[in-house]
């Protein structure tokens, strides 16, 4: 577990979509390695892959609205030494082309990188069809696959570069809407290792993606109530940082997880798998509760689906209460 304290406080944070981090990460990778190629499925600007396309037009390949072939072809490109990034919305790259991801890419353990744009309900007005809420569940069950869900622009850029330089299949999830940038170039990011952004002893919030910023805000507010809440950023969903999670369970005695994703099979489930098999402590899982998304304003949707700061604060109070009652 890397400790790197971050305070949000009254700072006015700039908001940038995490997808821009993906696009800028691709450009940086493109400069570092001529074998990096990017594949698009007619969503090149909305995944921010157009940044790479503009920088390296000869290394961008359009596959039309045909994600199954794009994923299989990525497998083929990797077999001749290319490092292909499949770039489309998460619902398509992990949904429509899931079997290609499973059998061609993961079963063959190919060096293919899969981007999943439009993660979560914060996609907003486009509604449920385009809000990826299942990708973490359906990717983390695939052997050989690394699954990453970074928290803001800078971390998405770092994560994109990191998976591009790691051998083997990797999936990266990112979002559409501008979100607060609270890390910077220097914030540590190590694949497979959680980062503790805030120390605390009463409870740990383990958050991923857009929920990390909210977790920090919630923790700071709870401090005023006299609660000491640790905030841990779980950016690598798989392989999961077992040691880091056990340390949180041991040191704070209860855990709240927070993700902009279905509760079933997602990051909270992954954490629970570690907790119940090692050191069972009370847990609350914040996520989408077995529903599809809706159209609406991104921020209003986050509140509507129970992903707001107040929901996190409630969950922390509940779980600490359960801890005090001996886990009941």
């Amino acid at each position, binding site marked *: 577990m890397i400790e790197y304290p971050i305070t949000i406080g009254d700072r006015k944070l700039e908001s940038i979509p995490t997808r821009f981090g993906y696009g800028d990460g691709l450009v940086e990778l493109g400069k570092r390695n001529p074998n990096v190629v990017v594949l698009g499925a007619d969503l090149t600007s909305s995944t921010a892959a157009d940044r790479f396309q503009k920088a390296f037009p000869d290394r961008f390949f359009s596959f*039309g609205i045909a994600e199954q072939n794009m994923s299989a*072809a990525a497998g*083929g*490109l990797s*077999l001749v030494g290319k490092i*292909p990034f499949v770039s489309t919305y998460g619902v398509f790259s992990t949904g429509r082309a899931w079997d*290609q991801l499973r*059998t061609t890419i993961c*079963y063959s353990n190919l060096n293919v990188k899969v981007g999943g744009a439009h993660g979560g309900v914060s996609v907003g007005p486009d509604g449920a069809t385009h809000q990826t809420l299942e990708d973490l569940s359906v990717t983390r069950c695939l052997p050989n696959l690394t699954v990453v869900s970074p928290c803001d622009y800078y971390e998405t850029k770092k994560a994109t570069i990191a998976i591009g330089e790691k051998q083997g299949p990797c999936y990266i999830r990112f979002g559409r809407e501008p979100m607060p940038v609270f890390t910077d170039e220097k914030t540590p990011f190590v694949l497979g290792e959680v980062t503790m952004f805030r120390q605390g002893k009463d409870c740990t919030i383990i958050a991923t993606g857009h929920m990390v910023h909210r977790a920090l805000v919630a923790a700071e507010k709870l401090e005023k109530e006299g609660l000491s809440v640790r905030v841990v950023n779980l950016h690598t969903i798989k392989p999961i940082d077992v040691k880091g999670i056990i340390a949180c369970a041991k040191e704070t005695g209860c855990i709240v997880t927070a993700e902009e994703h279905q509760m079933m099979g997602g990051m909270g489930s992954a954490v629970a798998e570690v907790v119940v098999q090692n050191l069972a402590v009370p847990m609350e899982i914040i996520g989408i509760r077995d529903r599809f998304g809706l159209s609406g304003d991104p921020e209003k949707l986050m509140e509507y689906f129970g992903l707001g700061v107040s929901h996190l604060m409630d969950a922390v109070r509940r779980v600490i209460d359960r801890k005090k009652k001996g886990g009941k």
Partner: protein
Amino acid sequence: MRMNKGVEELRQIATQIRIDIVKMLVQAGSGHLGGSLSVTDILVALYFNHMNIDPKNPCWEGRDYLILSKGHVCPALYAVLARAGYYPPEEMLTLRQLGGRLEGHPCKSRGLPGIEVSTGSLGQGIGVAGGIALGLKIDKKPNRVYSVNGDGELDEGSVWESVMSAGHYKLDNLTMIVDNNDLQIDGRIKDVMNLYPLKEKFLAFNWNVIECDGHDFKQLVDSLKKAEATKGKPTVIIAKTVKGKGVSFVEDKAEWHGKAPKPDEAVKALKELYALRNEVGRWKGATVELKPPKIAKELEALELEFAH
């Protein structure tokens, strides 16, 4: 390098491969006999005549790539790879056994030499082949890519995404061979899902189309040469075949899609194939004869009966 074997020797090899397939399947007790026998001649023509390969150095950079998109007929590929020298022929009898490298469907990470990618879920191999072909084009490399597909497999929509994309990128280094045995698990192609007319579909996607008899080595070899000579577009060879080819009671029967012969059926099949082997001549390259324990006794008698 190309093996460039002549038609006569190709026939001998194909007969040996069919014998190997029957023996592998009877020992495994499961597997796909019908399609393995229909695709045999296609794979023999590719490996023993046309493709640039180096079996002792399977990852040779200059090699041509073969993707068995219809992964369920891997017994035929496994036998061809063994007889071409990629791995020891004795290992063929480990088909579908725990701890072996010959998975029920081809598995890249089991490490069997010559398996480029895992296949078995239909409709993906042709996309992989297209990706390889595109990658080779980017690097201006001369290697060729072959994708062997089933006709039933062409029901998968993903196949047509790949066909469209190969036409779009003018992948003339890609050849697709359709093992057109006209049967799929549930029956005739036209009854399960009418795929025809097939040629016109490929033409519409800007492909070159060659039709041939998939059991005639002269036609197969000529078609592969024509495909290689075609520039500016990918080529599909629609090879008319007979499911179960070479074993009379298996031929053209959908029920033999996913079935292995029982010991008595295997002996009956081998009798026909041994007779054929005596007719076309025993291939001198087959230094090891498989002796599946399940039919050890019967095989001994059979060897005596057909000994020269």
